[in-house]
């Protein structure tokens, strides 16, 4: 430790005192709810006014029910599919823009304004964006139908929101549209953190842009890329606002994600808290698995001593947005 040991022991108790509010709030508002959720998963808790709670004879009944429920399986599939369909183009475009914006020979002008506008959708309320896109693609009256008919691509208004593939594609597109700017900013800051001498050396050696990008830029931002992947995946697993409000999980459950499934089980009419809790715990373990990768990553970075706080998206936790 770079700090002097003297005087530290005497003041040590303040370490506990100052982290106490955090610890208490964490216990009450996060740890207890997690444990309680896990417990509910083993019980018969359901109904509008829940009565006494009993642990089920077969404690794993809810878990078995959820795991064999085709709707949940479908929701899990949708969640991964929608995430994948948004993440691949998202990362590709973010990488392309990063390569353009950080090019030392081009010194692209107007970057500031591009960044501001490209990032903008990310801070807008996802609930609003979901309903806005519903209005933009609606049937029969919507701006998209209007222009397609006017230009002559369509003869008459088409119902875009009725096809399953199209619905999933649109949810993926909205997620992509909201998040590629964020990913781009993270990657740009990663590239700017690379020692410029490496690039200079490559330029002197006459490396082409293509070579510089694949052989210098990419290997040097590997950690950040992995980080982006993991945070986006965890965010994507919690996707809620867009699929919930855009098409209410439809058509025919095509855009039903696991978060929407959990919400619907518990809070929209069926009051199956125990099933919802079991589904929550299944998602919890999936997320903890990916989270542990992140843990190892951060710990490694920290022991480097050069700990530069790389992207941690809590937005994704709260909003269920990042994907």
């Amino acid at each position, binding site marked *: 430790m770079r700090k002097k040991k003297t005087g530290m022991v005497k003041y040590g108790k303040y370490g506990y005192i100052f982290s106490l509010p955090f610890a208490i709030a964490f216990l009450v508002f996060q740890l207890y709810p997690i444990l309680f959720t896990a417990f509910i998963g083993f019980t018969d808790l359901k109904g509008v006014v829940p009565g006494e709670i009993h642990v089920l004879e077969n404690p794993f009944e809810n878990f078995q029910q959820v795991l064999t429920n085709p709707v949940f399986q479908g929701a899990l599939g949708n969640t991964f599919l929608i995430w994948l369909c948004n993440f691949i183009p998202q990362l590709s475009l973010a990488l392309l823009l990063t390569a353009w914006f950080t090019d030392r020979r081009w010194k692209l002008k107007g970057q*500031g304004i591009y960044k501001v*506008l490209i990032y903008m959708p990310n801070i807008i309320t996802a609930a609003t964006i979901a309903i806005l896109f519903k*209005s933009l693609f609606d049937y029969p009256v919507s701006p998209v139908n209007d222009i397609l008919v006017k230009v002559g691509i369509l003869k008459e208004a088409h119902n875009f929101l009725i096809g399953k593939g199209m619905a999933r594609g649109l949810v993926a597109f909205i997620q992509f549209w909201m998040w590629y700017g964020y990913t781009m900013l993270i990657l740009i800051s990663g590239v700017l953190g690379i020692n410029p001498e490496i690039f200079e050396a490559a330029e002197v050696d006459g490396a082409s842009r293509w070579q510089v990008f694949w052989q210098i830029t990419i290997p040097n931002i590997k950690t950040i890329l992995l980080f982006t992947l993991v945070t986006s995946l965890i965010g994507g697993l919690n996707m809620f606002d867009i699929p919930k*409000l855009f098409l209410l999980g439809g058509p025919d459950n095509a855009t039903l994600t696991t978060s929407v499934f959990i*919400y619907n089980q518990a809070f929209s009419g069926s009051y199956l808290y125990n099933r919802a809790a079991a589904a929550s715990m299944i998602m919890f373990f999936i997320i903890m698995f990916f989270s542990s990768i992140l843990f190892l990553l951060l710990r490694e970075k920290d022991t480097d001593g050069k700990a530069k706080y790389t992207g941690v998206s809590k*937005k994704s936790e709260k909003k269920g947005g990042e994907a």
Partner: protein
Amino acid sequence: MADEVKEQSNADVSEQNTEKTELAEGKKAIRVNVVADKNAGAKNFIVKFGIHTVCILLALLSIFPFWIMIVNSTRSTVQIQEHALSLIPSTYVIQNFQILTGKSFNPAVGLLNSLIISTGSTLLTVYFSSLTAYAMVAYDWKLKNAFFKFIIGVMMIPAQVTMIGFYQAVYAVGMTNKLSMLILPAIAAPATVFFMRQYLYPTLSMEIVQAARIDGAGEFRIFNTIVLPMMKPAIATQAIFCFVNSWNNLFTPLVLLTDSKKYTMPIMVSLLRGDIYKTEYGSVYMGLTLTVLPLIIIYLILSKYIIAGVALGGVKS
């Protein structure tokens, strides 16, 4: 003799000739280079032009949906039915607003509740996260490292997976529909603590803290009067993102709040999805605009700091 001279002159000539050809070649080479440079310049121009075109298209893609939304919020439902796409605003702002607020959408209530929750949780998050971070950087205590690892470990646990237990617990003590249940949990924000700790670790000078101790300042006062002001840049960044996250949060309020007087802005927005607004196109766009416009204006004012904040390490929270 004569032969020799001749030979020599021949040699001279040949030398001159080679010189000439070398010169010519040199000139040619230079010319080729110039042409190549011109080619490269032109190519560079075309490439840059292409890049700017793509960037402008992407920027338009970001603006366009919001532009349509704002324009349509000024148009009557009949106008929208005739032509849903228009770039020119109309004059039905007041009518749309009246239809909108004549039903369940109450922007004043939503705005007030969202302001209370977002301001409250932002203050709690930045203050207590800074305090916790300070505890981890300034003091030596046994559980410090374990605590830090724990924070990294729980950082990614999303609200969604703990909600059933949280709701049941809140319900059991009769605290649903209390805004405090959406504010108080902000005291424990692991990701913000992590960020603050990473910021404070290299910046905190223990000499200053020691000097303050010698002057007789208590630990708590040192934190409030010396450390907190030092953390301003980190606090500003975190405050912006915390506020935005809280403002945009739909899931938790949607679960906890059933009383329409307690609805937040995102819940108000979700009402626009309901059947009562099904054919009121103009007023739906008006409702959406009311929630987006303040955010866009604030964003454009603060964009420099927000973009820098994301880049600072992409910590968003």
